[in-house]
């Protein structure tokens, strides 16, 4: 019972933190660009405003257009429920593991692409086609990178993987983990639409991927999609933190350990979001036709990681 309550609290924490993570990243980027920038709370204000606006729906939109935001949000929330945030005890482990997580993420991606295609606009179709190109290369990389960890721990349950790394810290600096971490980071940037694959701040239709698919959405639908995108970013950052460096995560369900663990995960998110902002300041966006090369590199790294984990078991 306590574990279930904690899992629900973790989900709420992740969803509530997500816009803040995006806001913090934007704020750091603004500072690095010599601007004052908006406060960390700006994405919350934007969500409140967008939820309150009316909707304009294209005449050519079918039921798929109306379904897509709900499926994207639901699949992201379900995926967020599977990720261990503050505790390695995951009651959701009985419902889904690493493979369920990846399946939920790709389900959201597919419906987002369908929602982009549905109204029949030129930019929506272009965005969907690009998203599918990128997703086809990143989803297997993410899965194989985490599978490399699963091979060492002998379980595909996310909580068990974090527990095994905690028990054997030597694993964390082994070649399997290091390679998997590099692969995971590149795939994560692609999956969440960050530089150098996609520019989250762009207004140029010809260069966008994620933004191009949601151009037709307005009002509450747009707010749902924005929130889901922020949750996906936070979810993958938490996954990176807790799979590859799980130190600080609670192994027992008691108030002291959980409170400490919340502080630790906030600190980890702060560090990862700062690194993300610094990286986005440093690199330029890749030409679209160079993106598959980068993703192929990350896939190769993931494959090497899995091989290395397999032979060094």
């Amino acid at each position, binding site marked *: 019972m306590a574990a279930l309550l904690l899992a629900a609290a973790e989900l709420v924490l992740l969803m509530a933190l997500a816009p803040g993570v995006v806001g913090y990243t*934007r704020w750091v980027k603004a500072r690095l660009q*010599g601007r004052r920038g908006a406060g960390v709370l700006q994405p919350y*204000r934007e969500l409140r405003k967008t939820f*309150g606006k*009316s909707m*304009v729906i294209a005449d050519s939109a079918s039921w798929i257009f109306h379904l897509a935001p709900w499926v994207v949000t639901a699949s992201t929330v379900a995926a967020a429920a599977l990720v261990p945030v503050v505790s390695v005890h995951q009651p959701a482990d009985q419902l889904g593991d690493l493979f369920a997580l990846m399946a939920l993420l790709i389900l959201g991606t597919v419906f987002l692409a369908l929602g982009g295609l549905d109204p029949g606009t030129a930019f929506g179709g272009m965005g969907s086609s690009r998203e599918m190109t990128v997703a086809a290369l990143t989803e297997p990389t993410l899965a194989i990178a985490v599978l490399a960890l699963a091979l060492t721990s002998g379980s595909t349950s996310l909580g068990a993987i974090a527990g095994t790394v905690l028990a054997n810290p030597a694993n964390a600096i082994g070649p399997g983990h290091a390679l998997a971490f590099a692969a995971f980071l590149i795939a994560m940037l692609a999956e969440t639409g960050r530089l150098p694959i996609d520019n989250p701040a*762009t*207004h140029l239709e010809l260069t*966008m991927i994620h933004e191009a698919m949601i151009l037709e959405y307005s009002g509450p639908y747009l707010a749902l999609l924005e929130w889901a995108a922020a949750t996906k970013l936070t979810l993958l950052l938490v996954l990176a933190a807790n799979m590859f460096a799980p130190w600080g995560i609670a192994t027992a369900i008691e108030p002291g350990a959980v409170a400490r663990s919340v502080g630790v995960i906030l600190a980890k998110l702060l560090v990862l979001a700062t690194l993300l902002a610094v990286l986005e300041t440093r690199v330029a966006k890749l030409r679209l036709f160079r993106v598959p090369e980068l993703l192929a590199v990350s896939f190769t790294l993931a494959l090497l990681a899995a091989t290395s984990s397999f032979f060094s078991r």
Partner: protein
Amino acid sequence: MRLFSKIARTGIVTEALPDQPENPITLARQIDERARALLGRAVAIREVDAGSCNGCEVEIAGLPGPVYDMERFGLHFVASPRHADLLLVTGPVTRNMAVPLRKTYEATPDPKLVVAVGDCARTCGVFAGSYAVAGPVDTIVPVDVYVDGCPPSPADILRGILTALGRLDPSREGR
């Protein structure tokens, strides 16, 4: 690393808005309080060039930059009228752009505001009477705020947007 040492040396270059606008800013009609309350400090802006000489666009391009930094007021540009709360319209409306401007206005979800930037948007400027011009902006879509100038400075455009949002009245001044 050289990039980041340069960033550290330069620091924040954002300037405070000057107290007085260089050109007059006119509130054309009373703005719905509900719209102001909802938009508040999070406003998505769609720029519509309805036939301008691009002088105003050069000034508008300065808004997201470090000096004028519109993001500190919670303003940002978006790529689609469906995401927008405020239309920034420039230029005399040409015959070719009259329908697209009308359609952009209709594609913007309520509540929405329109800020007309530059002399041309109000009076058609030097283009008045041309066979290619359909008329000033308010003959096509309702305008909330006019920002005069040829072209107006980025600071004036910012003041115009903030006036439309009711954030420049002394009683409700933000930051």
